[in-house]
């Protein structure tokens, strides 16, 4: 028995001799952490799903700061007689409209009755409620109101449906955000209100929707999960353990361990102030699942040892000695997997990861302290002698695998490749309404709203006019109208809210309600006057601030969509943004924003963010395996059975289900730590058999099967059942997560039982051959290695969703590069003009020589001429396509050439807005690319690509590059900083074609949006193909320059 196993034995001895103390202190520890349970809070703001610096969230919050907040509550009324325009419904509507002002935090109520209807009486503009006194309404008046409402673009399809069978009240809320109770209190009030009205007006049905109700649904889904999933889990556990352990006392001991693990994990969440959201609400279930696996491993060993006739104490020591390290390792790797969720872009996932990691750690601690202590004290009867009946079958199975190793290997690899190809076909869909299943009221009511009244997915466009009061400008208004009309013609768009409709109505009113004047005012003065008149007549709370900003220089157009899938919403958004760029002045170029947009990007952002997290977890775990197996070879072999299950599971998912939400981003991280357990157990037994027992490959595989085979099946089944229970969640993301994780775990078990032994047989037998016929062995081994690398690379290549668009982005970048190839060398005099925010100017002059280097980055020399104190200072750079650049700085006063680090590439170049990386050679390999769109203006046809710097020292996360297709020149680059917000824009001005056929700009203008500073590089005296060569670009040549 080696030293590490002795830790377990030593600890066991301590525990056995002090069982009461151990129980006391371990429970004390668990309870002291668990005391935090009382501090657990819920977070019900959908914004919490987005990091503080999520760009879509920032954009939407910016919009909300300009206009009113959109956190609305929708109260939907459906009269049973399918007609809204009846006297009794109008009475009810008027009453509930007035009562709705009393809903907590409400700032505005819009309904049919308080709609600010305008009409003209002679020269006066009369603004009044559409329904003033419902009790005195006659049938003709009701018909008149119906006619007005259905003709009013602001109401139709928003507040009233064309059939007049459903109407709604739209209540704007402004949450102060001080207490988590705000949202539930609104929901409670609204429910009580509607219940009261349902009783008072039995002919009406009420439904509740809107973002406020969605936030509340997050709350309820989380509560629901905690209150339904956990009991199911306990019931299942009891069943499993009763079957497996066949000992009531053992079940009781295990229940203690898992109960206190969960209490400690959740308590720690409370202590750290981690809020509960639907994703983190499944943490107790996950902890339960993982804790039970730990306990079962140890208990089964104890019971087995006792069945052989050993005393209980000896059995405990033996079981602890054998299981301490594996249980520690599996807990450790599981914790790593869950902690990697911190890379996600969605804070609730961080919470899930952190709570689970704490719970798993506690489960490990309790399994090796509380569990043996309880067993010591509890009366255990000696179990019947357990016969390892599985052995003959296990041996047969192992033999079959070894005999058919090549078949197994190729079947697995073929299946892997086949399924990997399917992965990109998974449709990502994050319609947030569908996050909730139909047991949640919000989902049902919202589905009803979308079917009968209006849409819930919206896009906001903030259209600026570029001048104060500019919204009255007829040219601007007609552009907004053109845009709104175009929007209305788009598929899926069911409602467009635009201020131009109000202007048109006012114009009509001011012309004695004549239909032919239902058009925009013809002059600016007229428009401004209408607006003033109208606004003065609006009652408190019904002003136009939700459509027009305070400066009256911009307005917001809201497009409401029917029940569209996120990909359609995104493509509509792209199309709309493009329309604005093509057809509207620059001030109106804007990006769509809304919660729907935020959720539409959530998967993409999470997949990107988690790719790193998963990779890191993977590397760490492989490292742990290499160390614990004390073998580099077997550590590397473990890579394959650890990766393949995720690929297989995703592939199967793609074929069977086909769509997924953003939960998909975290499945790999969640399962990696669990999947690896099978590999650890199998490989450690195998390695031990080979090393210590000196068995042959085949015998070692047989040994591994018969020793850990049944235990692995048991734990995998337990774990997959545990994760399957998440499918009972009311929150769809948890369903997906549970199902995919369970699938991955089962697939992993199969892979570890078939693929892993086959792989071991092939690799280790090849090695044996090598020692016999060395030459052949080497060749085979090489072939083997090449083949497996090729297959893994293939699987990865296919799995990593190489989209055609990405290739097109690369293609554009390559075109730029190819077009510029063959300039040989160039010199130019450059004037750098720096402007600060106050407009103060300073200049620098320099000379730049560039030498084209085939197959690598270019070499360049920059010599400063002014300011005079740095005259002669020069900068030599050898840029490299791959790896960091070589750079030297020459200081003429000391005649010193200093080699400098090129890591500081994000720093400013000579105090300018250009960073070192902006002026260095732009090699294709320095970025990865994605194609965004084709842009065609009147004169220029072009492409927009995004590129992402490969170097981690870059100051940018992405750059959007506008490329002219005719001459493949870069027109503009937008630089996004580490927080993914727009940092700088670089415009290339005045391209000219030189005699060698190359295009060069006269000026490069860099504007920093965050500081207001700008820098221009003005290029003069371009000369190409000069008599300069490699020998003019070295350290010595630096010293000759002044």
């Amino acid at each position, binding site marked *: 028995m080696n030293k590490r196993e002795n830790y377990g034995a030593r600890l066991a001895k301590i525990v056995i001799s002090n069982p009461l103390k151990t129980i006391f202190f371990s429970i004390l520890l668990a309870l002291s952490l668990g005391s935090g349970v009382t501090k657990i809070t819920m977070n019900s703001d959908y914004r919490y799903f987005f990091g503080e610096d999520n760009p879509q969230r920032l954009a939407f919050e910016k919009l909300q700061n300009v206009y009113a907040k959109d956190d609305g509550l929708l109260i939907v009324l459906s009269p049973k007689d399918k007609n809204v325009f009846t006297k009794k419904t109008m009475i009810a509507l008027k009453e509930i409209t007035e009562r709705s002002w009393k809903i907590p935090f409400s700032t505005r109520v819009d309904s049919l009755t308080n709609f600010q209807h305008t009409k003209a009486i002679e020269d006066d503009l009369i603004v009044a409620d559409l329904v003033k006194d419902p009790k005195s309404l006659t049938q003709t008046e009701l018909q008149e109101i119906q006619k007005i409402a259905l003709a009013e673009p602001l109401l139709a399809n928003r507040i009233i449906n064309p059939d007049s069978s459903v109407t709604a009240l739209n209540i704007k809320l402004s949450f102060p955000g001080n207490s988590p109770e705000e949202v539930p209190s609104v929901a409670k009030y609204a429910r009580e209100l509607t219940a009261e009205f349902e009783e008072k007006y039995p002919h009406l049905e009420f439904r509740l929707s809107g973002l406020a109700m969605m936030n509340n649904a997050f709350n309820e889904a989380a509560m629901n999960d905690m209150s339904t999933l956990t009991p199911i889990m306990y019931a299942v556990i009891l069943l499993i353990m009763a079957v497996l352990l066949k000992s009531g006392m053992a079940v009781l001991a295990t229940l203690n361990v898992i109960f206190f693990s969960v209490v400690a994990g959740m308590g720690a969440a409370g202590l750290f102030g981690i809020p509960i959201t639907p994703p983190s609400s499944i943490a107790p279930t996950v902890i339960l699942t993982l804790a039970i696996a730990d306990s079962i491993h140890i208990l089964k060993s104890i019971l087995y040892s006792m069945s052989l006739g050993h005393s209980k104490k000896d059995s405990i020591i033996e079981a602890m000695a054998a299981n301490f390290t594996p249980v520690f390792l599996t807990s450790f790797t599981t914790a790593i997997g869950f902690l990697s969720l911190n890379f996600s872009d969605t804070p609730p996932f961080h919470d899930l990861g952190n709570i689970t990691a704490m719970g798993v750690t506690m489960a490990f601690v309790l399994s090796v302290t509380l569990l043996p202590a309880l067993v010591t004290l509890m009366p255990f009867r000696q179990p019947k002698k357990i016969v390892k009946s599985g052995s003959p079958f296990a041996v047969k199975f192992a033999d079959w695998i070894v005999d058919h190793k090549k078949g197994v290997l190729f079947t697995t690899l073929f299946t892997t490749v086949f399924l990997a190809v399917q992965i990109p076909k998974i449709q990502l869909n994050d319609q947030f309404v569908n996050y909730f299943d139909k047991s949640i009221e919000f989902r049902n009511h919202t589905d009803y709203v979308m079917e009968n009244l209006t849409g819930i997915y919206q896009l906001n466009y903030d259209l600026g006019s570029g001048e104060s009061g500019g919204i009255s400008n007829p040219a601007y208004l007609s552009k907004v109208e053109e845009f709104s009309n175009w929007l209305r013609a788009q598929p899926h768009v069911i409602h467009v809210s635009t201020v131009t409709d109000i202007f048109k109505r006012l114009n009509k009113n001011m012309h004695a309600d004549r239909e032919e004047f239902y058009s925009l005012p013809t002059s600016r003065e007229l428009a401004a006057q209408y607006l003033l008149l109208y606004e003065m007549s609006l009652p408190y709370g019904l002003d136009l601030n939700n459509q027009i900003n305070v400066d009256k220089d911009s307005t917001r157009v809201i497009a409401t969509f029917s029940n569209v899938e996120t990909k359609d919403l995104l493509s509509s958004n792209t199309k709309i943004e493009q329309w604005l760029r093509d057809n509207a002045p620059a001030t109106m170029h804007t990006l769509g924003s809304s919660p729907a947009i935020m959720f539409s990007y959530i998967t993409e952002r999470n997949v990107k963010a988690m790719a790193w997290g998963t990779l890191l977890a993977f590397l760490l775990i492989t490292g742990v395996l290499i160390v614990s197996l004390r073998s580099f070879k077997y550590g590397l072999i473990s890579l394959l059975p650890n990766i393949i299950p995720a690929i297989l599971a995703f592939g199967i998912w793609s074929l069977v289900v086909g769509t997924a939400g953003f939960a998909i981003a975290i499945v790999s991280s969640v399962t990696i730590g669990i999947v690896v357990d099978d590999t650890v157990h199998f490989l450690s037994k195998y390695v031990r058999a080979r090393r210590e027992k000196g068995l042959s490959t085949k015998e070692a595989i047989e040994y591994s099967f018969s020793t850990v085979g049944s235990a692995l099946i048991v734990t995998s089944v337990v774990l997959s059942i545990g994760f399957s229970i998440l499918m009972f969640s009311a929150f769809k993301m948890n369903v997906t997560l549970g199902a995919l994780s369970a699938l991955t775990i089962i697939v992993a078990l199969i892979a570890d039982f078939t693929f892993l032994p086959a792989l071991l047989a092939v690799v280790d037998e090849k090695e044996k051959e090598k020692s016999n016929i060395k030459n052949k062995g080497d060749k085979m081994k090489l072939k083997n290695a090449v083949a497996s690398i090729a297959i893994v690379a293939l699987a990865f290549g296919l799995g990593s969703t190489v989209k055609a668009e990405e290739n097109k982005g690369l293609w554009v970048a390559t075109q730029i590069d190819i077009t510029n190839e063959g300039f040989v060398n160039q010199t130019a005099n450059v004037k750098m003009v720096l402007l600060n925010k106050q407009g103060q100017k300073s200049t620098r002059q320099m000379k730049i020589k560039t030498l084209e280097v085939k197959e690598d980055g270019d070499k360049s020399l920059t010599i400063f001429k002014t*300011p005079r104190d740095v005259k002669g200072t020069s900068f030599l750079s050898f840029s490299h396509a791959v790896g960091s650049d070589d750079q030297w700085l020459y200081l003429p006063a000391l005649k010193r050439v200093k*080699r400098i680090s090129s*890591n*500081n590439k994000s*720093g400013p170049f000579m*105090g300018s807005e250009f960073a070192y990386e902006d002026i260095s050679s732009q090699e294709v390999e320095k970025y990865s690319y994605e194609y965004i769109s084709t842009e065609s203006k009147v004169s220029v046809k072009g492409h927009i690509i995004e590129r992402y710097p490969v170097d981690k020292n870059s100051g940018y996360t992405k750059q959007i590059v506008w490329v002219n297709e005719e001459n493949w020149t870069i027109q503009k680059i937008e630089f996004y900083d580490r927080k993914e917000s727009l940092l700088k824009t670089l415009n290339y001005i005045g391209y000219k074609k030189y005699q060698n056929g190359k295009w060069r700009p006269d000026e490069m203008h860099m504007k920093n949006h965050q500081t207001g500073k700008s820098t221009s590089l003005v290029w003069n005296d371009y000369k190409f193909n000069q008599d300069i060569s490699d020998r*003019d670009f070295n350290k010595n040549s630096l*010293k000759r320059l002044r």
Partner: protein
Amino acid sequence: MKKLIALSFLSLMTSQTIAQEFTFSGVAKGEVRYFPEEGKYGNTEKLQPSFVIEPQAMYSWDNDRQVTTVIPYLRVDEQDNERTHFDLREMSYVGAFNNIETRIGVSKVFWGVTESYHLVDVINQSDFVDNIDGEDKLGQPMVNLSYLTDYGTFTGFALPYFRERTFSGSEGRFRGPLVVNTDKVQYMHVDGQNHTDYALRWSHYFGDFELGLSYFNGTNRDPFFKAISSTEIAPIYTQMEQYSIDSQYIYENWLLKTEMIVRDSQLEQRFFSTVTGFEYTFSNIKQTGLDVGVLAEWLYDERGTKTQTPFYDHTFIGTRIALNDVKSTEILAGMFVNNHDMSLTSYRIEAERRINENWKWEVNANIIHEPAPVSGLYLYEKDSYIEASISFYW
């Protein structure tokens, strides 16, 4: 030598002069040093104003492959007659022909990588009266030939004339009780000042690793002294051989540097000396452009207190703060710690900032703090100073 220069001017006219360029520039600087304490040896003035002019004429042609440069230097000092001096910093022709580069005339050559002390930099004599930090050098007549290959640059130097170190006069600071009389200089070699020194150097880089190996044979740049009267001492210049290595490795934001020499000189035993350390740069902090570098260098000299330099087992700890702003604001600060008793021996602070296209100010402080009586710095105990200067560049 003059012929050579004339020749080069001639060749300048005959060659097809593409991309030729003449520039005349330079700097004029007014500076004032303030010593808070009176000197120990009668040099009691606390204020030392000084004026420096250093114009520069440069003609380059053949795509900057051939260059002639003339840089005279004049300092006028109000206090110290010895500090008022003229020097020809540069009067040279440099020509690069294929893989060979030659440099003929009076010039300056820098070797090395470290910041606190330049150990291997041996070609030029220090202009000690300008500044005791050894950064200012006197022009050195030389002929050198570099051969650039794929295996690095090989350079050979012939140095036909020796430049004596400058020393403060009786009115100046930075001297001991005995004034150095440079007129009574002694040479160990019969050729005296006209001894021709030789040096060889190979330098190359391998990715992020820079390496230089040098050999020097000739007159020792560091003098020994001998008392010649009760008030004066005279410098003695010996012959020496020196082997040196300087290398630097860049690892992410780390620069690891080392300079090592072994010197075998007359009048002393062969010794080893090194300056080894690192510089770590926190670059572009919080995206503001601010760079903060942290340096630590160990200065070791096997001769111990018998060293000719002030430092023999000291640690230099310093920082370099560059704002990277439009005005190129920079602050350098450092201190030397004696490794034996952990006492702080010397502090330096330098700050500089551009005013506009042509003007720039600098402030330096050099504080010598309770040096041990055995230390070379003990003589300068009272010579801490603050210096402010303003420079005009054109």
